């Protein structure tokens, strides 16, 4: 087990040299983006148990801001990333203060409602391109426009961001803040009785999660050079974060990675098999995964492995 972390790091580092070519690199980038987004969601949705289904609001803000900076002032899109983080932070405070009065499904529904309102608003706001959206520089003016022909530079930029998100999550897990998040998830009333500042802790978690989700959105729009209301603020963006984290194992460090590792190739395969004819298939796929998880393993693949691994070990020892 002690070699699993260096092995995973080596695998991610050398993946583009193991599976070469744009097709596999594209899958690698999509995997990293899904893992970053789900890991960011995991801080508030997994550890604190506050199941936000409206995280697309932060992803969308992060995605729009870099291209807006380019569109309005001709600045390199990357200059808009910190602004996206700040706006997401402010949005997290504005949304978190009232919605954290709600619990369970009510909180989830409130986050969906806010994200949908923002999507509709952005879709009619001319400054941000309304329903058409925004475009980045078609051809890079310099390296800082981050418009690369190859997927490879994006792969390593995304990998570096994932490393930062995972390291932060690892530190959160071990800190007082992380213990408080898990206590809140297990029982707010009991946590409060032990002196846990419940609302402040949840708000802090949402702020941290929003910042990282915003960065994920920025990476997406800088790489694709385009953003519209559906790909930035659409409900599927939020649902994908939830599914990836839940599939792998919410409230675990590597759960979102496992989820992304399973879901992204599956999505790519279904898109390849069905092409444009399977446009609604993603919803069916997500729905199927939710049903299977709820029925067989609500703790996700991480929990499943925790059950299976000891049995396999016993069997191999017996043999």
């Amino acid at each position, binding site marked *: 087990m002690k070699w699993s972390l260096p092995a995973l790091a080596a695998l991610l580092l050398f993946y583009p040299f193991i599976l070469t070519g744009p097709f596999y690199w594209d899958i690698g980038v999509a995997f990293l983006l899904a893992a970053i987004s789900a890991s960011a969601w995991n801080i508030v949705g997994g550890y604190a148990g506050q199941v936000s289904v409206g995280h697309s609001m932060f992803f969308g803000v992060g995605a729009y801001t870099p291209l807006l900076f380019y569109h309005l002032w001709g600045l390199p899109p990357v200059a808009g990333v910190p602004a996206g983080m700040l706006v997401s932070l402010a949005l997290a405070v504005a949304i978190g203060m009232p919605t954290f009065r709600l619990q369970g499904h009510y909180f989830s529904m409130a986050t969906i409602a806010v994200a949908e309102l923002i999507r509709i608003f952005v879709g009619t706001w001319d400054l941000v391109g309304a329903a058409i959206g925004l475009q980045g520089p078609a051809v890079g003016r310099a390296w800082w426009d981050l418009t690369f022909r190859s997927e490879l530079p994006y792969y390593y930029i995304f990998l570096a961001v994932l490393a930062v998100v995972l390291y932060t999550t690892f530190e959160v897990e071990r800190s*007082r803040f992380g213990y408080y998040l898990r206590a809140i998830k297990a029982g707010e009333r009991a946590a*409060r*009785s032990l002196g846990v500042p419940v609302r402040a802790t949840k708000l802090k978690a949402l702020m941290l999660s929003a910042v990282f989700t915003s960065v994920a959105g920025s990476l997406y729009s800088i790489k694709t050079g385009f953003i519209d209301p559906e790909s930035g603020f659409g409900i599927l963006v939020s649902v994908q974060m939830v599914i990836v984290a839940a599939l792998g194992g919410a409230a675990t460090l590597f759960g979102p990675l496992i989820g992304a590792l399973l879901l992204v190739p599956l999505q790519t395969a279904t898109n390849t098999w069905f092409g444009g004819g399977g446009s609604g298939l993603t919803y069916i796929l997500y729905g199927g995964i939710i049903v299977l998880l709820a029925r067989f393993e609500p703790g996700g693949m991480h929990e499943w492995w925790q059950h299976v691994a000891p049995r396999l070990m016993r069997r191999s020892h017996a043999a």
Partner: protein
Amino acid sequence: MLLSAQNISKAFGSFLAVRGADLAVAEGEIIGLIGPNGAGKSTFFNCLAGDTVPTTGRVLFDGIDVTRASAEAHARAGIGRTFQVPATFEDMTVLENVMVGAFLRHHHRGAARETALRIVEMTGLTRQSAQRARSLGTPGRKRLEIARVLATGPRLMLLDEALAGLTPTELQQAIALVRRIHELGITLVIVEHIMEVIMTLAQRVLVFNQGHVIAHGKPREVVANEAVIEAYLGRGHRRRRREAS
């Protein structure tokens, strides 16, 4: 007085669960709260713990008004509580559960862990410290609740039926644990149905019935009080006993 609750009433709609109850607890005392089911003792207890804001009256802790303070503020002030139905953090280990409490006074993980380990040992949970709370039985959960509160460094502990559902042997061990906690200088208010616990531990007892405090005094005096016997056994209990004999 360490804790002083004055003229506490709590209404839920038109129903008055507690009616003008008073309680004064001196530092180092053990007070028992008893009464039949639905007597209002848990509601009164929740008012003391900051879980419920009383409709009238006020609660002073060490001279400071904490009537409207949150449950977190109560914990910070030094009032710890357990729950009637153990509210352990099921997916966390025993040690992690206790560490959540210890983090109130220790911001760093190492210091919190050290305190938690000491308390886990004191409460007899060392063997189970790496187990998830969900794997514990009733006695283990009750101990864990007590350990978690102890880790917050309380001056006053409110125990809500913390010893209910234990076998006679477990009960004796739990009584010994409560005694050890008291020896640490912690003041205790105990809500309990088991008279053995009250008679053994409490220095003074308050009896609740229909929201009122109907009797208070030393345990031996209170159990002999006619109003208390009537509250538990109903009117006409002497006649019924005569008829039965």
